[in-house]
């Protein structure tokens, strides 16, 4: 058996100085320059890194939300509906898909998304809902829903 730690135990100055420092150096192992070799510099950087990592877990969720919103509004624009009224229309017709799945559909299943946009705008049309933020400058395509019965379903109460 080889005892790798024995040499380290002998080398210890204080009660736990070596071990205390080694915890930090372990985390700084992939840094460059003095940041990995000098304890006083390394500990500062490791503390910063850990604080960032803690905060970033929350930020990542916000970033994903922003990205989904961007994607949804991009896809809504292609179907002449604003993201706001899309959300309102789906809510009113009791379709409870969240941002994540809507943006997923927008990117990977555009035809399904097109249906959802058409349903939402039809529902808003039936409800007489007017979107004040809409510039009414269509740039995309509308799905024609005339040949499919939807109105009765959309008119019924929740």
């Amino acid at each position, binding site marked *: 058996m080889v005892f790798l730690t024995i040499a380290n135990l002998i080398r210890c100055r204080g009660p736990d100085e070596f071990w205390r420092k080694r915890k930090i150096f372990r985390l700084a192992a992939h840094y460059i320059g003095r940041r990995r070799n000098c304890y006083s510099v390394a500990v500062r950087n490791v503390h910063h890194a850990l604080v960032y990592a803690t905060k970033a877990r929350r930020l990542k969720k916000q970033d994903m939300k922003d990205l989904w919103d961007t994607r949804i509004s991009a896809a809504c624009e292609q179907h002449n509906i604003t993201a706001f009224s899309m959300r309102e229309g789906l809510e009113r017709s009791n379709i409870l898909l969240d941002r994540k799945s809507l943006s997923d559909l927008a*990117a990977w299943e555009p035809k399904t998304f097109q249906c959802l946009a058409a349903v939402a705008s039809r529902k808003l049309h039936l409800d007489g809902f007017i979107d004040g933020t809409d510039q009414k400058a269509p740039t995309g395509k509308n799905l024609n829903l005339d040949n499919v019965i939807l109105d009765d379903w959309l008119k019924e109460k929740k």
Partner: protein
Amino acid sequence: MSAAKRVQQWATFARTWHIFDCKWQDPYLSANVIKKYLMGMHKPIYHPMNDCGDVVVCINSRDIALRGDDWRQRAYFHHTGYPGGASWTLAWEVHNKDPTMIIKKAVYRSMKGNLQRRHTMQRMLIYPGEEVPEDIMQNVTNQIRQLRPVPTRLDHIPEDEVKKYPKVMEYPEDYVLK
């Protein structure tokens, strides 16, 4: 990657060329629209780290319209880096010197300052007039909708049409027109 998949990949990330007519448009409002196309934010596959931005060709940048008194009031700041090297140039001076500068700066400022910004700006082509080189024009496949319609100026309407237009009142004989 199979051949069909490869083609699909090319088709997905192929750049579309858009044209935008700056005539009578507010550069700061249209910058937000142009930015969206340059960065690819109009596509549902958008991600800040994928390269899905398009090319935008802006024409008629000489005829942009600034709000209110902005031609006289708005100043563009430049510093040479030396002491006393600061200079402020008014918008009309900048525009006289280079008619593409104001719209370019507006788009540049509307984007977040990251490493990608300068590369994204390279995909924007600005022309002061309507003349666009043939090799660029043949790529253009889409037109970006203008933010507001171009108004017709009174002095561009034929004179007889103006004369025929019904009047609410006539000026009195002795009225002095300034």
